[in-house]
């Protein structure tokens, strides 16, 4: 006996679950010019964007970090979807989204907070960011923090480049980093 659940009912339940504040994490997979993005939020704010939208794996990770009531609830991330659309269409340079970095510890959190201040269309280096985060010699640790950035795009690790100006690396792959910098009109290394 496997009666399938009507789509409207399924959507209604997901919306009600989010509206009643019963979720630890609400997520959805949204379209973008860089491919599908997995986006997730807690009551405190956006907690994850992933270029690698494998819900099974990400659900487990989020459940461990924030609690096991993880549910796909598209309406709960409508604001994220809207701001990302605006950004990709060039209508938005700054995000007004709250972020939840409670799962990120110590220095990495300091670096991400500092990273959020790097302006649209500009780049900085790992070393500069380390200095601004209070540990000038920790460029390598900054690299690790960028690599593990849970909220790329919104926390703009694509704006961090090597000391020579080379793009160096990106969790979502270098072509995506280049595409984001081009979208923002940043100067790219020739």
């Amino acid at each position, binding site marked *: *006996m*496997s*009666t*399938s*659940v*009507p789509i409207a*009912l*399924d959507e*209604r*339940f997901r919306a*009600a*679950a989010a509206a*009643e504040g*019963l*979720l630890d994490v609400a997520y959805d997979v949204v379209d973008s010019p860089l491919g599908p993005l997995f986006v997730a939020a807690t009551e405190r704010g956006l907690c994850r964007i992933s270029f690698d939208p494998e*819900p*099974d794996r990400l*659900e*487990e990770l*989020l*459940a461990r970090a924030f*609690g*096991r*009531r*993880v*549910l*796909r609830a598209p309406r709960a991330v409508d604001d994220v979807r809207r701001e990302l659309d605006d950004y990709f269409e060039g209508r938005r340079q700054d995000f007004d989204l709250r972020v939840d970095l409670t799962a990120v510890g110590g220095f990495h959190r300091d670096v991400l907070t500092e990273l959020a201040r790097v302006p649209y269309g500009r780049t900085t280096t790992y070393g500069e960011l380390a200095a601004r985060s209070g540990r000038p010699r920790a460029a390598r640790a900054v690299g690790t923090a960028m690599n593990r950035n849970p909220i790329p795009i919104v926390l703009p690790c694509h704006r961090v480049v090597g000391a020579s100006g080379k793009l160096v690396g990106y969790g979502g792959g270098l072509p995506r980093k280049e595409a984001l910098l081009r979208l923002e009109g940043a100067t790219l290394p020739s």
Partner: protein
Amino acid sequence: MTIPPFERFYEEHRGIVFAVLARRLGRPAAEDAFQETFLRALRAYPRLEHGDHLRAWVLTIAGRVAIDALRRKEVPLARDEGRTDERPVYAQLEHLADGLPPTERAAVVLRYGYDLEYADIADALGSTPDAARQAASSGVRRLRRKETQ
């Protein structure tokens, strides 16, 4: 068994929950009951201590929601007619069946408390209709033995 993220749990069991509710309440009422069942499951989810028998667990919630819905509509439960005991059959059975091994308990409660077919119970327990029938009847035998002791 570890407790899965709610999405996995929901995807795995929403079909049977909806089918059971649709059979008991009819389509329109089943829709409200479906939502209520999974909202109740969400509220209780953080308190779960293990991931065993999640299907039987959610069907038990669905059963209670269905009984509440039937009561609200003031539709008398056919099986309760003529009884002097106010408690519905499923509630009495769940209490009685508490000491049974989990599969037998689930089979007995689903068969005699919720009036499910063996095919549905097999779906619920992830087994076959024959195995479900066997689990229900050995559960009943065990209960009888307990009663005569």
